[in-house]
């Protein structure tokens, strides 16, 4: 394949992965739907039954809400996973930055738990959708968050804020790292990819390091400029 077709090749490779992941999450939702309806039916039938007819009915009534709760959690994960997979359908589209980030954060939560790092997020309300590459933005976000996660020893905190910058109307993703870190995130190979990704996204990145007591605080501001804004 010619070098100029390399990008198209990678786009199709991503689209292929996205399609398979989307299909998988769709199947999972169907399984969850069947489990939910089946446990719901047991609950319905138990509620129709005269009380104390079965020695286990009280136990069933305690177990069923646990199943329901787990199904709800799994369904929520599937919802994010499905959204994440579909982001690869089109290289460029109009999308909500908080939604796109939240999909990815939901998939990173497990890793954060393992590292005992707290992931926090807050999003300004009613942010204008942007027209850009959602999948590439998620990758850029990963290239920031993953090295940050790896850099903590434990008990760290990563706070993500998305807001509109008043001065130029661009959307900023502010990542604040707090806690003791065993290595700098900047040495990660993921971090090295950022300049090329930022160029493609027409985005900027700035980083400041400050100290509060014995704690080092790193602020990474990732801003999507005006050229990337606009409703399509």
């Amino acid at each position, binding site marked *: 394949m010619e070098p100029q077709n390399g990008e198209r090749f990678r786009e199709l490779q991503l689209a292929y992965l996205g399609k398979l992941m989307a299909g998988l999450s769709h199947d999972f939702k169907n399984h*969850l739907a069947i489990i939910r309806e089946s446990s719901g039916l047991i609950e*319905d039938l138990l509620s129709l039954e005269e009380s104390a007819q079965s020695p286990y009915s009280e136990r069933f009534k305690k177990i069923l809400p646990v199943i329901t709760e787990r199904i709800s959690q799994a369904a929520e994960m599937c919802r994010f996973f499905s959204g994440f997979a579909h982001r690869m359908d089109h290289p460029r589209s109009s999308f909500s930055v908080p939604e796109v980030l939240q999909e990815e954060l939901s998939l990173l939560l497990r890793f954060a738990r393992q590292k005992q790092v707290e992931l926090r997020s807050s999003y300004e309300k009613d942010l204008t959708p942007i027209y850009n590459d959602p999948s590439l933005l998620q990758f850029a976000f990963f290239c920031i968050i993953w090295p940050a996660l790896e850099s903590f020893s434990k008990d760290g905190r990563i706070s993500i804020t998305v807001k509109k910058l008043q001065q130029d109307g661009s959307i900023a993703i502010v990542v604040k790292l707090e806690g003791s870190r065993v290595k700098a995130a900047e040495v990660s190979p993921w971090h090295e990819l950022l300049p090329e990704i930022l160029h493609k996204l027409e985005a900027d990145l700035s980083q400041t390091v400050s100290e509060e007591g014995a704690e080092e605080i790193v602020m990474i501001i990732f801003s999507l400029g005006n050229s990337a804004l606009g409703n399509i």
Partner: protein
Amino acid sequence: MSKVKVLVVDDEKDFATTLAERLNIRGFETTAVFCTEDALALIHARNIPDVVLLDLKMPRMDGMETLKEIKKYNPAIEVIILTGHGAGVPLTGIDRGKHGAFDCVMKPADINELTVKINQAMIKKGNAKI
């Protein structure tokens, strides 16, 4: 007072039959079919449901085509789409105004949410029976 007739159309048999049974417990008169052809055959045989719960992705004829067929045959039948499609992504093609679906519910759906939607669809028809 006659019961609200609901038709569940989903190729996942276990899902369709269990959901139908749960709706029946809640006072609806529910039938489950597992393909769009059977759904259309039932409707053409003048066994007209008040509300159809329709899966979006099915083999052969998908939910959107079935929705158009149902509305063409009888616009008074209200259709609620059940879908496992991803969140945060526009549900391309589910244009309520254009195709006439009453609403769209994500799978796995909550039975109480579905019951509310069915009753809202009946209110829209001006014919709330429950």
